[in-house]
């Protein structure tokens, strides 16, 4: 169905072009990516809304009572103020680890059930998982709101500090840290442009304001947890656990470095 949208058909054709052409067309490509009406992320968000409001799980409850930091059921602008410390779980949580908490506590799912399949696999022609769709929905209600995660609680400060250290921490058979690829301006790996998330606020803002994002090359919505997993996978490390404290710390570091920019959701990327 999404393939009937003409703008998107052009986009889908682009990644197949030769490298040189790909670079030449980068500008046009980027412009086309701005067209929100052609963003299938909106449909994923719509599905997420239905899932969010449907009574599900052993406790037959919806997620409408989930507190994302601004009070139970208050979704507008909540994603822009994540990660943050939550008293009930005694943890700093990002959007997705918060969803795991609410799905287990409010709906009664077991954590193992929720975590069994978190990302849809485009190579198997799957569509987005429920939790991806729900995350897209909750995030979309912060469209236009400035990224502004709180930094009051000691645990929030700790997460930021650990996130920064993790960002620069080198490990694995390639000796990589995030900083190997993301701490200098205007670098590329092969032809992929890399953002500087350690010293360039503009870069970090441009990147972070468009997550969750519809990834054209995957044909589905991707979230920050997926991106954190993906970069760690590229680093030849074991799978980064969904919602793990390490993933949340990295997202804290990136979110604080992106502070002040209005979210532009759903994003759309290569």
């Amino acid at each position, binding site marked *: 169905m999404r393939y009937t949208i003409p703008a998107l058909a052009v986009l889908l054709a682009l990644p197949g072009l030769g490298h040189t052409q790909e670079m030449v067309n980068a500008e046009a490509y980027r412009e086309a990516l701005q067209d929100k009406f052609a963003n299938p992320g909106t449909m994923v968000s719509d599905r997420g809304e239905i899932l969010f409001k449907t009574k599900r799980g052993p406790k037959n409850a919806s997620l409408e009572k989930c507190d994302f930091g601004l009070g139970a059921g208050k979704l507008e602008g909540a994603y822009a103020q994540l990660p943050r410390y939550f008293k009930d779980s005694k943890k700093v949580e990002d959007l997705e680890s918060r969803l795991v908490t609410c799905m287990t506590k409010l709906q009664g799912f077991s954590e193992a059930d929720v975590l069994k399949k978190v990302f849809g696999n485009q190579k198997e022609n799957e569509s987005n998982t429920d939790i991806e769709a729900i995350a897209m929905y909750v995030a979309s209600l912060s469209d236009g709101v400035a990224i502004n995660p709180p930094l009051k609680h000691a645990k929030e400060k700790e997460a930021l500090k650990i996130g920064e250290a993790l960002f620069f921490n080198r490990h694995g058979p*390639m000796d990589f840290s995030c900083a190997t690829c993301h701490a200098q301006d205007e670098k590329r*790996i092969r032809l992929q442009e890399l953002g500087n998330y350690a010293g360039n606020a503009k870069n970090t803002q441009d990147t972070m304001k468009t997550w969750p994002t519809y990834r054209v090359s995957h044909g589905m919505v991707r979230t920050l947890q997926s991106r954190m997993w993906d970069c760690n996978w590229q680093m*030849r*490390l*074991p799978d980064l656990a969904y919602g793990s404290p*390490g993933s949340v710390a990295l997202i804290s570091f990136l979110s604080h470095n992106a502070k002040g920019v209005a979210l532009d959701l759903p994003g759309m990327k290569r």
Partner: protein
Amino acid sequence: MKFKQTLLLAALTLAANGVAIADKPVVDAKLKAQVDKIIALSFLPGENQDLSRLKQDETLQTCNQYRDNVPEKMAAAIMEREAKAIKYPADGKLMGDWKTGEKYYKMGFAYRIGTVEPDKADKDRGGNCYACHSADPKEVAFGTIGPGLTGYGKLRGSGDDIVKYTYEKIYNAQAYNACSQMPRLGHNGILTPEKIAHITAFLVSPDSPVNK
């Protein structure tokens, strides 16, 4: 001439690294303990996983402690340790066949693990050098994390010292530059000594497209 400039630049970079640093680590013992704990909680064990990859050797621990800007003395110790561990091909030839080298210069690292598309343990691995360096001027899909290497042999010649330096640099980038951002491809077992000798030929040989 250009080679001298590069050497000078390298020396200056090292000097800058050496001078700019206070001797205090950026990551103190407390923060390191916190980070280690978080890492232990954050990666999945099980089939196709390998938690031993999260362990850092002494060199990486020092690099991490100082965020890659280690004080001069420690830098010297790292370079000495890494240089000592370099292994050479059994036949002692550091200059292999440039055509084979071209293949391994291009080919990716493989070595992925986890639940999604893990590579077979015996998958042929390359150096993925184009990810970070240019080489053959006809190849436009190169990254820029490392310096461009187009014309490498033409600029530096193909004397024994250049061959040895190139082989050793690829085997272990930190033997020449403590906490280099370049992976220690031989040292960490990504590339065999033989593959490194082939790649060396690809960079150095006058017949290689790199030097045309």
